[in-house]
């Protein structure tokens, strides 16, 4: 039975209902969630801070932390990843880190570690009063704050349950995506939680590990990055086949959709939306020209430039919101994506700010200036042209171009996800600029026309 997250802890749900499948067959039940959240909520109240930064490896820990924080009346800040350099931007004495990454409580941190014992009188929450700040790539190069209430999330989950609940019924959910972003949080964790289905709280990076852990007829929450890189597998048969595969982040190549269907059962259900808007439309590619269709209650329109605007009850204040996508729109509200509109790019299904990567690069003592951009191809590639400092050229001389690029990737990896790490590198004496000081993109592109080595 579907129970909204705000009413879950005060509901009469059976304590034996499975919530999360941990390693080695261990299952956290609703009674476990109840007891662990009570202990955590009591500790949060005792701490008495207005805000908490929620960043977890485990989706189960995230759910405990979220429910406990709201029970304690706290505002929940959700960083886009759990990397130390990113968390530094958010954590302070007034906004301690609430996480399963830390092992014990400290001045700026509280551990979600499954302990229990403290009592807490749960109350039904008013979801409109439960506030999140999510973060996504922003135009300033810093993560952009996206405020959201639990009410918006619950309204959207009701729509998703209406669309997919029947097909998902009884299935456990596994994901290759992070719950620090709303797609992973909603589809991998909250939808199963509210529907009373178990989910696997980890992030499976490797198919072999996912499939070894997967029970029969599970549902999948994944991305084009994973669906375009499936190893040779025997197709699942009969009752092993998956009822639903969700994918989001970017358009899935038709061949990858067809391959997933052949191996796992269903054509993947692609979800279109953004952190700001939530899920707006979906499609299953039966042909290469299958348009996205709005979800119930969602509306679309285009402006003079062909930019898509969307509206749903759960978009911010229910207002029209401009997307970053150019589309061909049909009379019934459906659409096909034709391109991206601005400095944000999509790579491996992740929304990435090129400016943010460039700023992190130029913070390195090895880099004087840097241009990061997308090189179009069979598979779009994120690339960097770097003007090294003297120290950078010294490293280039001793380690070579490849190892220098790896050093810079490593420096970025403290702040940015893998998808935001440039895969090809060129090192030049000076970035090609025109007389107005603008970058000459054609010249930059040509640097990658040839093999590396002697550039």
């Amino acid at each position, binding site marked *: 039975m579907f129970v909204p997250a705000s009413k879950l802890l005060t509901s009469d749900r059976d304590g034996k209902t499975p919530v999360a499948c941990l390693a080695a067959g261990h299952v956290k039940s609703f009674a476990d969630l109840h007891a662990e959240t009570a202990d955590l909520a009591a500790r949060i109240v005792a701490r008495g801070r207005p805000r908490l930064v929620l960043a977890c490896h485990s989706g189960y820990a995230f759910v405990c932390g979220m429910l406990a924080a709201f029970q304690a009346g706290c505002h929940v800040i959700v960083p886009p990843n759990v990397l130390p350099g990113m968390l530094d931007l958010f954590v302070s004495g007034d906004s301690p880190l609430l996480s399963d990454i830390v092992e014990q409580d400290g001045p700026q941190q509280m551990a979600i570690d499954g302990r229990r014992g403290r009592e807490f009188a749960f109350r039904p929450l008013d979801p409109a009063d439960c506030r999140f700040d999510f973060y996504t790539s922003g135009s300033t190069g810093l993560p952009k704050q996206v405020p959201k209430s639990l009410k918006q999330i619950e309204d959207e989950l009701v729509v998703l349950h209406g669309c997919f609940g029947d097909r998902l019924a009884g299935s456990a959910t596994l994901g290759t995506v992070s719950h620090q972003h709303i797609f992973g949080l909603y589809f991998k964790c909250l939808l199963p939680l509210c529907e009373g289905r178990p989910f696997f709280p980890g992030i499976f*990076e*490797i*198919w*072999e*590990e*996912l*499939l*070894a*852990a997967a029970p029969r007829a599970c549902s999948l929450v994944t991305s084009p*990055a*994973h669906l375009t*890189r*499936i*190893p*040779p597998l025997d197709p699942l048969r009969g009752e092993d086949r998956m009822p639903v595969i969700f994918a989001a982040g970017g358009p899935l190549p038709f061949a990858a959709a067809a391959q997933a269907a052949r191996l796992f059962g269903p054509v993947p259900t692609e979800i279109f939306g953004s952190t700001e808007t939530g899920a707006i439309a979906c499609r299953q590619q039966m042909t290469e020209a299958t348009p996205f269709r709005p979800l119930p209650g969602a509306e679309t329109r285009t402006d003079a430039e062909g930019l898509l605007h969307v509206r749903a009850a759960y978009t911010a204040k229910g207002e029209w919101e401009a997307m970053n996508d150019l589309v061909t729109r049909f009379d019934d509200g459906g659409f096909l994506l034709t391109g991206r509109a601005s400095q944000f790019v999509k790579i*491996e299904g992740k929304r990435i700010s090129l400016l943010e990567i460039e700023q992190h690069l130029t913070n390195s003592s090895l880099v004087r200036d840097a241009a990061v951009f997308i090189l179009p191809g069979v598979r779009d590639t994120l690339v960097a042209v770097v003007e090294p400092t003297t120290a950078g050229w010294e490293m280039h001389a001793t380690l*070579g*171009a*490849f*190892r220098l*690029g*790896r050093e810079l*990737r*490593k420096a970025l*990896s403290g702040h940015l996800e*893998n*998808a935001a*790490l440039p*895969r*090809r*590198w060129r090192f030049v004496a000076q970035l090609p600029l025109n007389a107005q000081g603008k970058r000459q993109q054609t010249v930059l592109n040509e640097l990658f026309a040839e*093999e*590396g*080595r002697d550039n």
Partner: protein
Amino acid sequence: MSDFELEIKKLVIDTLNLEDITPEEIDSEERLFVDGLGLDSIDALELGVAIQKTYGIKISAKNDDLKDHFSSIRNLANFITAERKEMGA
């Protein structure tokens, strides 16, 4: 360095389109992921696909030392050799 290790190094470079590096510049014992060669999770996916297609072996996570097998060129070469033997190849 064995010939097979050299072959795996070439496979890694070709599969992942690594530039500005030759097989000889990869140490058979250096770490492939995070440190050392600095490969990431997307590389791991592509490498897994390439190895299974090239050598006709099945990688199963029930094989719980998977991370170990992928930790260096030497371990990878040993792992592939053992898997192929097991399959009677």
